[in-house]
């Protein structure tokens, strides 16, 4: 299997666009800040200022512009990232018929913060609740807004798999192309807004980090470091246009990179504990589908949340899959935080940027690596051509995913 990647977009704490994200990752600039009351102790926040239009902007219907003006920053970031990828893939020229373009949004329970606000605000005077609320409170509202903004008329769906939602959505997009349901598919990672009780509950499980480094937020996120104390949430949206090779070639569209295979495995476990077996199974399946032996993988973008047990488990799974092969390993979450539902798409964008740029980005705050057998990138980026890479994504519910990416053949590179 081989699917082309022809467009990318991102909105992160580093700014609006793929370029500021790549710059942050390459130069190793932490985007973490201290949280306000009821927020996580440390987080990476989308920029306060509302974004202008992405370069080469799409003409968005007035109805969508109005809706967005009344929407929160999450929806605005989602649409922004989608438009950037859309223009990057040159889909705005109408080269692919709207009916042959799909839309997959990664994430679920996206509206619960807003829904809770409205439930509390209108509890004693429910007659005045907006008639739009019923629509706003359903995740599918994002499908409607993005598809109207970009004129997408093929298959559309949300894919939910907790922190593995991004990878699961990319996998679904690949299947839609592989079974010819669509020729191109916009996969969008949706920003996640946790409620105050979810934040506290995560803190109570011990998964949420930052408490020990709140006064020095940029030092707080430490994937694969002995001093790590949990994951740091990062607000972000990310976008990727997947396209069939014949469609991209037929319209003379150079590709950034390719998806070569994927693996997804449940751990058959209801708790929050990660599973070495299921993580290794996801990676092994992705490699087998891609026709790659472990020795041909140059780089792994780890799930690497910086949670105590999570990193330890992933390190063991990586040792088990790669043995003596020792690919480079880093975690994008160390710089821009854990984007939860959007993480898989965001990290896929990071992987492709590194494939195209011939480098691996540094790991954040990796002073004392938990495992000397793993080839963890240090404090500086390393210039290094990458031909094949894996990107891991694991989610509550015992969900384990991994996607294999390949550098575009030289003649087809952008």
């Amino acid at each position, binding site marked *: 299997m081989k699917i082309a990647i022809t467009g990318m977009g991102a909105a992160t704490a580093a700014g609006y666009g793929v370029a500021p994200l790549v710059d942050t990752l390459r130069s190793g600039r932490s985007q973490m800040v201290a949280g306000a009351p009821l927020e996580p102790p440390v987080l990476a926040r989308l920029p306060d200022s509302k974004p202008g239009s992405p370069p080469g902007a799409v003409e968005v219907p*007035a109805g969508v512009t*109005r809706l967005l*003006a*009344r929407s929160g920053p999450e929806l605005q970031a989602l649409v922004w990232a989608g438009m950037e990828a859309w223009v990057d893939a040159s889909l705005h020229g109408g080269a692919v018929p709207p009916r042959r373009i799909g839309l997959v949004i990664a994430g679920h329970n996206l509206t619960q913060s807003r829904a809770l606000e409205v439930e509390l605000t209108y509890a004693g*005077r429910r*007659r*005045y*609740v*907006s*008639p*739009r609320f019923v629509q706003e409170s359903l995740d599918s509202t994002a499908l409607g807004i993005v598809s109207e903004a970009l004129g997408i008329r093929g298959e559309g769906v949300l894919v939910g798999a907790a922190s593995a939602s991004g990878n699961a959505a990319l996998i679904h997009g690949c299947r839609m192309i592989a079974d010819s349901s669509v020729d191109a598919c916009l996969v969008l990672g949706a920003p996640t807004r946790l409620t105050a009780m979810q934040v506290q509950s995560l803190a109570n499980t011990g998964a949420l980090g930052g408490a020990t480094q709140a006064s020095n937020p940029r030092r707080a996120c430490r994937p694969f470091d002995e001093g790590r104390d949990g994951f740091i949430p990062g607000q972000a949206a990310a976008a990727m246009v997947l396209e069939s090779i014949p469609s991209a070639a037929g319209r003379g569209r150079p590709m950034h990179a390719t998806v070569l295979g994927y693996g997804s495995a449940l751990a058959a476990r209801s708790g929050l504990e990660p599973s070495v077996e299921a993580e290794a199974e996801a990676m092994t399946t992705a490699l087998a589908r891609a026709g790659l032996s472990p020795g041909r993988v140059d780089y792994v973008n780890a799930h690497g949340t910086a949670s105590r047990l999570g990193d330890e488990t992933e390190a063991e799974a990586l040792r088990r899959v790669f043995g003596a092969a020792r690919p480079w390993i880093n975690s994008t979450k160390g710089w821009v935080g854990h984007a939860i539902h959007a993480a898989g798409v965001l990290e896929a964008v990071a992987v492709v940027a590194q494939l195209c740029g011939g480098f691996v980005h540094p790991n954040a705050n990796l002073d004392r690596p938990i495992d000397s057998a793993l080839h963890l990138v240090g404090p500086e980026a390393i210039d290094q051509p990458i031909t094949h890479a894996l990107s891991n994504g694991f989610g509550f519910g015992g969900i384990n995913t991994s996607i294999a990416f390949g550098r575009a053949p030289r003649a087809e590179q952008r």
Partner: protein
Amino acid sequence: MQPNNSLDGHILSVLRQSLRTVLPDLSEEQLVLDRDLAELGFNSLDRADVITMTMEALGVEVPVVQFLGVKTIRELTQLFARQSRR
């Protein structure tokens, strides 16, 4: 034609505010009494949104069924005025 007393004037100003919250591109001059809401670009959900917003701002409750035949800004103002006088 202007509203005939201060209550109607207040209702009209609240209503215009709701109308412009839902469709911010409309100018004040476009929101004259006899304009048809559909012609101004309000679909059925927009109208329901305007009505709920205005009810909240005025602190009145009007059964949805009463709004079924209402087409113009004048008719809306009159309906809210009747409810407010109760």
